[in-house]
């Protein structure tokens, strides 16, 4: 997982000025939010289920080592293999080794964020193995040599005319004068192209939404059916998953599934929820002959001890992303990391270090909508604040910001001086701005006034008014 030479503030400027991106992002605002709200309203128990989901994850995280050991024993008993991997390097080595032993030339892939985290496609290609993304959104971004811009809607940053142009350029086997401007035509063409790829693949790689300790099973949740064709047709099925995907039982999985689709797409239940256990049985008419689970840590075990444990409850529904005003404005790519939005702003510094991702915790207005919609009630704003504190402590916050905070802290520790200084500033600014009621330009506030006016204070400070109020109404 890398932050490819990213400069967050430059990327944000480009994103905000990109009319095509801004047009595409409207679909996020208009689609996801309303659908989730309706799905939640249709289920009276939804809020209580969120509490239950949080509790299941908390219990599991408190016993993570033990559940993983039980899970591993069950996978082995059902004829599968578990490969523990401390980091991306180890995970890639294991996957390449399995592919080589299978003599794999092409590998189909179901959507997997862990696959993105370990950048498996580039490494498969380098080894002469062709990875084929089969989720429609992933297929489109792979064709464009891009990264997914959303964890459940990888191509949400694109409009259909751009996708049409890509299909025309890439799918040369079809007549040039075919009609391809409508969504059904695009979907159908991708279906035709990918159908043969499914049939030809030697190995299928999927992610996992959940790993179930009681039976050693993996669960994937999809709408297209691509994940299923990926795992039943090839000879080998590889699951890539991170440690915290584990749940104790199918009853626990049922509770989490009840909040997952509703939070993500506003569906009552996704079209396909598939439970896989081991390789095909001797009598089975189809299915993979080998089943491997690549179990990735990549820094997560360190998060277990400390304030960021709560982020490990995440079930990757994308609701925090869908409801984030910053994400709406800049899209997923500007974050420069595998995971965008509020979850990414908390998780990325944990995976790559705050020094490499100090800008991300700043990409928040602290409006709190992410926490309001999180199905497992992760206090995302609180965790963002933790990262800002750490960035400050480790001196990675920009110097001007540090100086500003230092200045504020100097006054804040001296309440009388603070009251005097803010009172004076309010009076001076109030007098200077009285005529227009706002400032179009102000020294030291250029970052603000470049894009909007600064309102002029109209009276006394909050502290003055508070004190006066207390005097009148003791």
């Amino acid at each position, binding site marked *: 997982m890398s932050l490819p030479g990213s400069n967050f503030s430059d990327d944000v400027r480009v994103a905000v000025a990109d009319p095509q991106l801004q047009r595409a992002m409207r679909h996020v605002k208009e689609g996801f939010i309303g659908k989730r709200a309706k799905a939640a309203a249709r289920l009276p128990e939804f809020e209580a289920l969120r509490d239950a989901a949080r509790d299941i994850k908390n219990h599991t995280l408190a016993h993570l080592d033990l559940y993983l050991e039980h899970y591993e024993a069950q996978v082995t008993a059902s004829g599968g293999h578990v490969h523990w991997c401390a980091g991306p390097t*180890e995970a890639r080595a294991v996957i390449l080794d399995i592919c080589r032993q299978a003599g794999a030339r092409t590998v189909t892939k179901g959507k997997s964020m862990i696959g993105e985290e370990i950048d498996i496609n580039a490494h498969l290609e380098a080894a002469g193995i062709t990875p084929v993304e089969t989720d429609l959104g992933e297929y489109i971004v792979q064709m464009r040599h891009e990264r997914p811009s959303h964890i459940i809607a990888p191509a949400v940053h694109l409009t259909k005319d751009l996708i049409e142009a890509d299909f025309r350029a890439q799918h040369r086997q079809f007549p040039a004068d075919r009609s391809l401007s409508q969504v059904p035509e695009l*979907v159908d063409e991708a279906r035709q192209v990918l159908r043969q790829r499914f049939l030809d693949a030697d190995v299928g790689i999927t992610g996992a939404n959940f790993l179930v300790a009681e039976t050693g099973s993996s669960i994937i949740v999809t709408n297209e059916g691509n994940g299923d064709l990926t795992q039943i047709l090839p000879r080998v099925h590889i699951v890539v998953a991170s440690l915290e995907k584990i749940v104790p039982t*199918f*009853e626990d999985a*049922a509770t989490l599934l009840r909040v997952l689709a509703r939070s993500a797409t506003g569906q009552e239940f*996704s079209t396909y929820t598939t439970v896989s256990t081991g390789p095909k049985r001797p009598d089975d008419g189809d299915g993979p002959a080998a089943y491997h689970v690549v179990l990735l840590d990549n820094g997560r*075990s*360190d998060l277990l001890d400390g304030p960021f444990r709560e982020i490990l409850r995440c079930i990757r529904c994308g609701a925090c992303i869908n409801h984030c005003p910053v994400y709406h404005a800049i899209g997923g790519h500007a974050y420069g990391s595998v995971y965008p939005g509020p979850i990414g702003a908390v998780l990325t510094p944990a995976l790559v270090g705050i020094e490499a991702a100090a800008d991300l915790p700043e990409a928040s207005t602290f409006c709190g909508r992410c926490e309001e919609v999180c199905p497992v009630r992760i206090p995302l704003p609180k965790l963002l604040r933790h990262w800002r504190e750490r960035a400050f402590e480790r001196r990675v916050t920009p110097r001007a910001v540090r100086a500003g905070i230092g200045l504020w802290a100097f006054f804040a520790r001296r309440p009388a001086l603070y009251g005097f200084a803010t009172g004076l500033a309010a009076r001076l600014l109030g007098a200077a701005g009285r005529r227009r009621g706002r400032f179009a330009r102000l020294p030291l506030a250029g970052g603000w006034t470049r894009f909007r006016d600064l309102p002029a204070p109209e009276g006394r400070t909050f502290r003055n008014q508070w004190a006066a109020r207390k005097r009148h109404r003791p």
Partner: protein
Amino acid sequence: MGSAQKAPSVSGDRERVLGSLRRALGRGQEAAADAAARAAVAQRIDEHRRGLIPARSQLDPAQQVALFETMACQQAATVGHVAHRDAVPAAIADYLKEANLPPRLRVAPDPALTGLPWDTQPLLEISTGRAAADDTASLTGAFAGIAETGTLMLRSGAQHPTSLNFLPDVHIVVLRAADVVGPYEEAWDRLRAHEGDGAMPRTVNFVTGPSRTADIEQTIQLGAHGPRRLHIILIDETD
């Protein structure tokens, strides 16, 4: 392949990762606390304790079947009824004809399906086995129907190749009304009773409506990679 294939050795990582987890969770400091944690995990897995189950699915059997049908249709499945299983071949022939589909059907090698009176439909071309790439329509049974969300539970096995659920353009499923349950939890109980505790078939598919995608401009389009149509034939017989 299975156990015959030599797995790449990363046992070093196993101890590294587990060691890191144990340190973070404070294991090995107090024997009593460790034992309590182990007991809690063993109990949780053995108990299969149910969580909060939505009231929606707590109905009598007839209402459960009605809810199953309503929810499945909301997700773009279609549902037909027959009074007796002998009427299934005619119902399928009619369905394919009305949908203007070729009268060809790949039937799961399940005696309950292959033993149906297919000779009543001489125009219907029947074959059995796993799905082939150019199959237009498949027929399978279902282990259960789940009323809560109109979801089918399909269990892989010699009598039900999983490819039949995904490769053909049309997937037709025969479901006995007696196999409709309320919530997911009841379906798990049935499966455990069938398999024996802790054992699982290779694949269990929960299917709610036909395949779809919203990956282009959030526009929902049916038939992404899996079946374009899902048709459920409910057998209302009670025996």
